[in-house]
C-alpha cells in the first residue's frame, strides 16, 4: 500500500486550489478521496504525480471547478428553516385549539380564575376543532387535504417550513 507524505498532501491541496476548488470543506473531501484512491491503487514504488494526474482527470468533464460550481449552486437554493413531519405539524395545532380550553377548565376547576364564560367559549372552539383535527391527523397521506405531498409554508415568497408526509 502506497503511503502519502505530508508534502504530497500539500501538493494535492495546492493543485485543488489552483484548479478552482475554494470551499474548504470540499477541498478536504476531495483530498481524502484522492488519498484513499492513491493509497489503495498505487504500488509502493509507483509514480505519485503520474497517478495523481490520472485520478484528478477522472473527476471532471471539462474543468475541476465544475464540482465547486455545482456545490455552490446547490448550496444557494432556497432552504427551509424548519422540516416537520405530520405529527410535528399537528401537535402545535392541537395545542393552539385545545390548549386554551384545557387551561381555562383547570383554572376554573381549581377556583383560581372563575371564568365560566371563557370555559364555554374555549370549549366551543375545542368542540369544533378537535374532531376536525383528529380526522385530518388520521387521514392517510394521499387523501389529506391539509398537507399535500411536498407541502410547504411560504413567507414573503420564501419557503420557511416544509411538512413531510407521514413515515
Amino acid at each position, binding site marked *: 500500500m502506497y503511503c502519502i507524505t505530508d508534502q504530497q*498532501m500539500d501538493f494535492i491541496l495546492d493543485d485543488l486550489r489552483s484548479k478552482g476548488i475554494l470551499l474548504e470543506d470540499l477541498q478536504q473531501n476531495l483530498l481524502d478521496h484522492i488519498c484513499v484512491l492513491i493509497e489503495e491503487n498505487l504500488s509502493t514504488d509507483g509514480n505519485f504525480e503520474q497517478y495523481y494526474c490520472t485520478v484528478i482527470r477522472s473527476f471532471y468533464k471539462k474543468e475541476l471547478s465544475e464540482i465547486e460550481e455545482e456545490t455552490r449552486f446547490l448550496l444557494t437554493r432556497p432552504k427551509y428553516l424548519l422540516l416537520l413531519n405530520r405529527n410535528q405539524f399537528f401537535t402545535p395545532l392541537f395545542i393552539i385549539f385545545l390548549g386554551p380550553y384545557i387551561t381555562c377548565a383547570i383554572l376554573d376547576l381549581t377556583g383560581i380564575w372563575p371564568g365560566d364564560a371563557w370555559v364555554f367559549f374555549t370549549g366551543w372552539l375545542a368542540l369544533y376543532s378537535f374532531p376536525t383535527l383528529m380526522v385530518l391527523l388520521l387521514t392517510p397521506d394521499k387523501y389529506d387535504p391539509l398537507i399535500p405531498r411536498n407541502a410547504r409554508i411560504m413567507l414573503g415568497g420564501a419557503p420557511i417550513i416544509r411538512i413531510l408526509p407521514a413515515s
Partner: protein
Amino acid sequence: MNYSSELIKGTLKTIILKLLAGNKKMYGYEITQKVKEITKDKIQITEGALYPTLHALEADGLVTTETEYIGKRVRKYYSLSPAGKATAKEKVKEMASFMQTMALLLDIQPKTA
C-alpha cells in the same frame, strides 16, 4: 451495461439517503465503493456528482457530519438526521412508485426466474 450519468444524477439523492439509512455513518469514498459493490459496477457515482449532493444534503439538514483526522487529512463522515430518515423513506417510496409507472409506460415485463 453502465447507466448514463443523467439517469444516475436524478436518483443520486435517493441512493445516498438509502445507503446512509442502512449504515450508521459513511464517508465519500466509502459511498462510491458501496454503490459499485451492490450494483456490481453498473452504477459508478462520480466525485463531481457525489460531493455537491452531500454538501446540499448537509445544508438541507438531512445529514449530519462528524470529522476524523487520518494523519494530517480530515475525513468527513455522514449520517442521517431525523429529518433525513423521514426523507429517505419518502424518497424510496416515491422511487418504487416511479419505477412501477415507468414499467407500465414502457411496457416492460418483469423477468421471472
